[in-house]
Each structure stands twice: as structure tokens, then as C-alpha cells.
């Protein structure tokens, strides 16, 4: 099948950094002292009517606002489909409903939390908000969720270039999830400042969150941020297997490692998970600008969407945010491509290749 490019023509991201304003690019890094990173949120009333806003959970507000930002950025072009992704979904609503259920012995339960706890609640909410009756699905594939959503959109665009997809992700730094998973060593045992995450290798990472939406089409517009060339997912690969796959990935996209301008490294600060990606960076991408991002957004299943936002921003604005830099290489005349290599839990590995639009 012919390799085509697809274009990111709208972006809306709400994260623990100041990202919901598309006119600026990481103006002031947000610092967190206590291992948990929470979103910097806009005034939701600028996006959602009060009669709807009153009922929405925090994550639904964040997700819907990010989607609306993206649609506005795409100059209100109507998507023909909505594909969403999440790791833990609306665990806050799940926990609230369960707490009521257990405390009240399964009696007199209110429906709102149950209704909003379904993983596809945001996809349904966005569809009804913009009256989009087209293709709609939600992936909950842990570290592959976002890339699966992208892959689904790209396959459908390959079949029909007249379509447009709103592809998004959302995950929350939920207290229940933190309580449960910190006991399994997911997060740093000591309170950790996010900007110092990589200074001291240790077990565990930071708990993060965010929502990111991208408007993806087969054609360029004035709004284009970048193009998406390719994406791949690898489940629980060994180091050699992953490395070969990465070289092959670049090769089929007519690139070698030296051709990569920006390498975005998905290390999470967890010394048990970061080894392979760090070694790949050291082995193949010493001439590329190397960036990291999980000290800015934390670790969560769909964090690679933050990396996509970062890569798209670098390509559109032709700027590299200092706070994300890992190395120091001579400045390049122009930044033409970005390779994102992410991992989740040291098992779900993904590649995304972006090019200047």
C-alpha cells in the first residue's frame, strides 16, 4: 500500500504545563514538588455552557475543552469521525459510585457517576456537542491506546481522503489510582520535584495527566502543524528486537538515524523502564536534538499524545523548548522531522514519525 502522509490541522492540549493556549510554547515551566502533576486548566465557561458544565466530572471538562480548542484551532472544520483513547478512563467517577455502593449497601444510588464512568463517555459527549454522527470509538489499550487511535484514523484516511478525524486522549492523575498503584512501585517513594526527575535515577515515576486532541486530515491547510508519516507499536519486545524494528521503521520511511532532527525520548524517570530507550538514544541519536517530556506531564498511559503535541509544536514553530532538552548539538538550519519513541511500563513501545508540514 502506498505510503501517504496525513496532516495535523488542529491541536488542543490541556496538561500540567501551560499548553491550552496555542499561541505560546511552554512559556514558563510549571514546577511540582510532590510527585503528582495536575493540569493547568482554562476557565471552562469559555468552552462549555453552564447547564452542561454543572454535571461534568473534572476529566470530562478537561477533555471536552481540549477537543473544543482543537476544533477552534482547525477553524471549526467538521470532523467525520471521533476516535478517543485512555488508560484508566474516568476512575474518579468509578470510585465515587463504588464508594456510594459500598457505604450504602447497594441502595439509593445516583446514576450520574455510573453514567460518566464509561470509558467512551468523552467520545459520546464530543459527538453530541458537535452533532457528529460519524465513526466513533474508544481504545483503552494501556500504553498503546493513543497510537491505536492514530492508527485507526490513518487507515480510514487511507481509504477515503475526504474524511477528517478528531483523535484524542485523556487520563487523570486520580487519587484512587495513585493510592493503589503507588503500593506497586509505580511512583517515586519520596516526594519528587518534576523538573529534577532525571537527576537522580530511582524506581518509580511521576503521576501525570492530560487531554490532547488532534484534527487529522489528508490535506494540508493554513492551520497545519505537521504531518504524521507513520506509527508503529511493539508489545513487550527485547532490546535487540526493538532496535531492529526502529531501524526498519526509519528505513521504510526512507530515513536513517542520522536524518532524524529531533528524537523525543519517552523515558519516565523510572530506572526499571528507561534503560532501553536511553540506550537507543545514546547509540543512534547523538547527532539529533534529544528531548524528554515526562518531567513536564508526568507518566500516564496516553502520555505519548503530549509528545506528539511537543513534536508538532517544534516543527510548526521551529523552536526547541530548553526545558525539554537532553543534549547539546550544533543548531540545525531547519527542523524537518521528529521521531518519538515512547514506552509505558517498560512493555508497550511505540514509534511516531512526524515531518514538517
Amino acid at each position, binding site marked *: *500500500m502506498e505510503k501517504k502522509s496525513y496532516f495535523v490541522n488542529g491541536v488542543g492540549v490541556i496538561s500540567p504545563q501551560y499548553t491550552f493556549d496555542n499561541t505560546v510554547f511552554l512559556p514558563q515551566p510549571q514546577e511540582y514538588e510532590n510527585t503528582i502533576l495536575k493540569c493547568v486548566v482554562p476557565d471552562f465557561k469559555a468552552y462549555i455552557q453552564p447547564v452542561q458544565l454543572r454535571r461534568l466530572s473534572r476529566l470530562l471538562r478537561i477533555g471536552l475543552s481540549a477537543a473544543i480548542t482543537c476544533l477552534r484551532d482547525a477553524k471549526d472544520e467538521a470532523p467525520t469521525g*471521533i476516535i478517543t483513547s485512555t*488508560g*484508566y*478512563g474516568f*476512575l474518579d467517577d*468509578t470510585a465515587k*459510585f*463504588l*464508594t456510594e*455502593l*459500598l457505604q450504602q*449497601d*447497594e*441502595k439509593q*444510588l*445516583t*446514576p450520574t457517576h*455510573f*453514567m*460518566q464512568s*464509561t*470509558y*467512551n*463517555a468523552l*467520545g*459520546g*459527549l464530543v*459527538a*453530541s456537542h458537535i*452533532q*457528529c*454522527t*460519524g*465513526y*466513533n*470509538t*474508544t*481504545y*483503552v*489499550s*494501556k500504553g*498503546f*491506546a493513543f497510537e*491505536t487511535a492514530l*492508527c*485507526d484514523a490513518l*487507515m*480510514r484516511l*487511507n481509504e477515503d481522503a475526504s474524511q477528517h478525524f478528531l483523535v484524542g486522549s485523556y487520563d487523570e492523575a486520580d487519587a*484512587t489510582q495513585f*493510592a*493503589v*498503584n503507588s*503500593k*506497586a512501585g509505580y511512583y517515586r517513594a519520596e516526594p519528587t520535584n518534576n523538573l529534577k526527575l532525571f537527576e537522580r535515577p530511582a524506581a518509580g515515576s511521576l503521576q501525570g495527566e492530560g487531554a490532547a486532541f488532534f484534527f487529522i486530515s489528508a490535506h494540508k491547510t493554513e492551520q497545519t502543524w505537521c504531518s504524521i508519516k507513520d506509527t508503529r*507499536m511493539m*508489545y*513487550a519486545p527485547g532490546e535487540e528486537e526493538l532496535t531492529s524494528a526502529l531501524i526498519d521503521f526509519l528505513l521504510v520511511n526512507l530515513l536513517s538515524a542520522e536524518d532524524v532532527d529531533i528524537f523525543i525520548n519517552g523515558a519516565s524517570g523510572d530506572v526499571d523502564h528507561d534503560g532501553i530507550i536511553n540506550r537507543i538514544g545514546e547509540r543512534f541519536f547523538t547527532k539529533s536534538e534529544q528531548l524528554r517530556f515526562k518531567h513536564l506531564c508526568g507518566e500516564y498511559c496516553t502520555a505519548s499524545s503530549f509528545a506528539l503535541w511537543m513534536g508538532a509544536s517544534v516543527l510548526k514553530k521551529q523552536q526547541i523548548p530548553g526545558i525539554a532538552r537532553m543534549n547539546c548539538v550544533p543548531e540545525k538550519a531547519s527542523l524537518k522531522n521528529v521521531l518519538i519513541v515512547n514506552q509505558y511500563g517498560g*512493555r508497550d513501545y511505540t514509534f511516531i514519525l512526524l515531518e514538517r508540514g
Partner: protein
Amino acid sequence: MSQRIFITGFGAITSIGENVDENFQSLVEARCGIGKADVLETVHRDMPVCEIKLHDRELLELAKAPGGKGFTRTATLGLIAVKEAIRSAELSRQEIHDSAFISATSTGGIREFEKYFYQLQENTGPGPWSQFRDTANPGDHAERIADELGIKKYVGTVSTACSSAANAIMMGAQMIKHQQVDRVICGGTEALSKFTLNGFNSLFILDKEHCKPFDEKRKGLNLGEGAAYLILESEQVVNRSRRKPVAELKGYGNANDAFHQTASSPEGTGAWKAMLEALQSAHLDPVHVGYINAHGTATENNDLSEGLAIQKIFGDDVPHFSSTKPYTGHTLAAAGSIEAVFSILALRHQVVFPNLNFGQPMKELTISPVTGILRNAKIEYVLSNSFGFGGNTSSLLLGSAA
């Protein structure tokens, strides 16, 4: 790229059978899984459910799954059905390794999460909860099943409420059509839980008696549990392996109602669009559909919007249709694949399964479902519908393998 997609294996476990053959026998003998909750510990023991009468340890034995290793009831049901599908297609170890696995669930390990809700958050020491540390994550069950079987190519999970498994099957077909993979094992799994029982109860859409789909006096749904998976392969792979497919996935459609979080639009816009798209994707005139396995949950809302949508598409020529949910209950995310299996059985045996408990036609509809089993039904194509919360509507079009 008009790649044909064949189904070369299938597996299912529900309250009416531990495998596909047992399910078929129950369907033709009108044997339902309805009863009281005996295994699930709940105060709502008066609420009828279609429960699999096996305790978790018995299911683990049936699955030959390792005990104490975080296999939730949902994951175990899934493993049983996947193993049957693999056996039925006679996949080799290498073929399993090279397959993609796309599963679906709407609750994942919520049953274990609700049981150990406080211990998982508070206790640091080991206990029976420790193995369920991260099993509430809906993607977890798929990775566990994949690891147990040695599936490596791709592991993913879909969650779009009651249309989940249908969407998992669609994504599997897409990956094959776009040559990402030769073979996909896809479907869904769902165990009963207090979470879903009470959740649906809070929405007032459970029937306190055995459900009556498409009946004027219907009062809501009964919950069920189960799992089912299909093995999808491309035409080239089938030719190479010389497997005999059991059916063909001719087309599929997915749309969104864009109306309300938990209710369908009165006109059934999403249902209509999804069915139409399934037919159009196969370039098939509606007149060729021999049977519709309806979503038919027996809620006032679903059956009305689905009935109207069917009438709109088929006009005066509505094929035989029935809901098999009185047999199995509403198995939520697994419904799409369980009912795909039932649709394949309908094709293979040329049988239309009855819509049990039907008495009085709905006043808004001119059509009524099939009430007794129909044999020698001459079915070439079956449409299987799955509609869910969030407005997600999906429809699969299945045909004979010839």
C-alpha cells in the same frame, strides 16, 4: 483494497453454554440462562441475571489459567473463549505468536476492584487482593490473556460500552485490510459485577422479570456475563493455510447517535446509519439479508429506536429478526462478539433463533420478531447489531464462507 475477511475459528462461553456447541444446543432447545445471582455476592438477589454458574476457581480450572496471578473473572472468561477459538482454527504456536489480539470490555476487573476496594488502597502488606493490584485497568485483561498464550504482534482493547466487541472485530478487519497483520483474534468479555448491576439499576432500566425484547410491555434488560472471540484472517492467508472458514465478514458499520449519554434518539439515527453503512460497505441490497440478530435489550428506548431504524432501511421487506438476549442476558461489551457467534451459527445451520418472551407487538412498529425456531431458513447474510451508551452504534454483516 477489497480484501476479503474470513472467520476461521470461534469460541464462546455464556450462561447457556461453556463452548460454542453447548450454546447452539441451548439456542435450539430454548434453554435460557436466566436465574438469580448465586455466585455474585449482591443484595439484589431478586434481580434476574444470566449468570455462569461456576465460581472463579472453577473457571480458572476450565481455562487452565494460573491461579493467584491476577486473572480476574473477566480475563478468565476471555481466556476460555480465546482458547476455544484458537483450537477451532487449529492455530500453531507461531501463528498465535504472530497474531494481533483485540479484546473488548466495559468494566475490566471491576468485580475484583469492588471486592477489594479498600484493601487495594490502604493495605501495603500481601493478601488475596495483591494479585489484583492493577486489574481494574481495562487493558490489563488483554495483556494477561496475550501473555498466557504467547501473542506478540499487537495487543489492544476497545471500550465503547455495549458495542465494544463489534468495534474490536471491525478494527481487526481494518488491520488485516491494511496489511498491518495477517490474523487477528478479536472479541470481548464481561463478568457480572455489583458495579454494573447497581449502575443499570440506578438508571431504572433493569426488568425485575425475564426480559421481553420488542414487546409492548417490555420493562428493561437483564444483565448477563460471558465472552466470545473470532479468528479473522485475510483471503491470502486462508488460501495459504488451506483452512476452511466458518463464515465471512462481509461488511460493517459504525456511527454515533449524538443524542444523549445513555439513551438512543427516538428515530434511531445512529442505528440506522450503522446498519446502512454495513450494507453499503458490502455493496449489498438490504433485500438479501436473511436474518437480523438485533441488539434488542428490551429497554423501552432501544427497541423502539432499533425497530424504527430497521423499518426505515428494509421498508416493506423486513427480514426475520430476533433478539437472543432473553437467552444470555445483556453481556455488555461481550454482546457484539457473542451475538456474532450466534449469527455465524444461524448461517451455518440455516436457523433463525427465536425472540423469547414476545407476546404483544409494539404499537409504534409494524413488524414483530420471530417467536419460534425457524429451520431451513435459507439465510445468506446476517446483520448483527450492537448499540451502547455514549451513542456508539455498530453493525456487522456476516455471510456464508462459500
